[in-house]
């Protein structure tokens, strides 16, 4: 009888511990899932700002010299630096959107280009002479070309 009481006491303690651990585990899993989705959402927002906002900013700060082109690595956005003959060429290289500043007539130098963000797609479509539709992984931006650039 005494042994049965001890067994019952041990079982109840084990039961409570197991129940508490289950609750704790469920809570940790729940929290982890929420944290994961929050982090994914924040990451998506950051990537969107890194690529799409970057393209809008480039377009606004270089209104006159932007044009669409095609190079060794596919479509590229050409941003001329005034009349110097130099400029930035923005294209995709090895999974990154890169900015390659060099003489515009020279071959591309992707290894020395600056990486902007991770991106595998750059598609440039001329909707009309003064409007480019640029599609990257994170979505689409429209760039109004105010100067002499635009579709080639």
């Amino acid at each position, binding site marked *: 009888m005494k042994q049965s009481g001890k067994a019952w006491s041990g079982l109840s303690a084990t039961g409570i511990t197991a129940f508490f651990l289950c609750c704790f585990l469920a809570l940790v899993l729940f929290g982890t899932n929420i944290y994961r989705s929050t982090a994914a959402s924040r990451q998506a927002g950051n990537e969107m700002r890194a690529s799409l906002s970057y393209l809008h900013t480039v377009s606004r700060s270089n209104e006159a010299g932007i044009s669409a082109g095609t190079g060794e690595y596919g479509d590229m956005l050409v941003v001329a630096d005034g009349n110097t003959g130099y400029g930035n060429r923005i294209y995709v290289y090895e999974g990154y959107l890169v900015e390659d500043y060099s003489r515009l007539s020279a071959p591309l130098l992707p290894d020395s280009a600056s990486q902007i963000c991770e991106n595998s797609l750059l598609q440039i479509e001329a909707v009309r002479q003064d*409007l480019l539709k640029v599609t990257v992984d994170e979505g689409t931006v429209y760039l109004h070309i105010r100067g002499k650039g635009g579709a080639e």
Partner: protein
Amino acid sequence: MKETKRSGFYLEVILMLAVSIFVIQILSSAFAASYRRSRQASRLSAAVTLAANGAELCASAKSGEELCRLLSGADARLEGDVVTAFFDEDLNMDPAGAMQMRIEWKEDEKEFADIVIDILCNGETVYTLDTGIFTEGDRP
């Protein structure tokens, strides 16, 4: 003796349940608020980009009718001074998209139009961009 042990066990279980429920409730509301804020932030990022796209389209279009033509893939409609169009969450034109762009186009002066771009998601305004364009050429 046996009765005392049993009631002690039940008391422990009830106490632990109460504490667990309290903790779960607090953490759930904290996690849910964090998730909601994060969704709002990503929706705001998309809305800002979409509004910037709208401004670029307006600058190219120069008139409400032309803007409607440019946004034809987004089920664009011109009603008075207002153009409405729909986009999906990847910012592509989609007549069934959840994001609505509402562009109010007011030509205040001869060569200038005031543009107000509202981005709505499920009927709620997420972002408003107040801008303007020169309708005759790009610069006065």
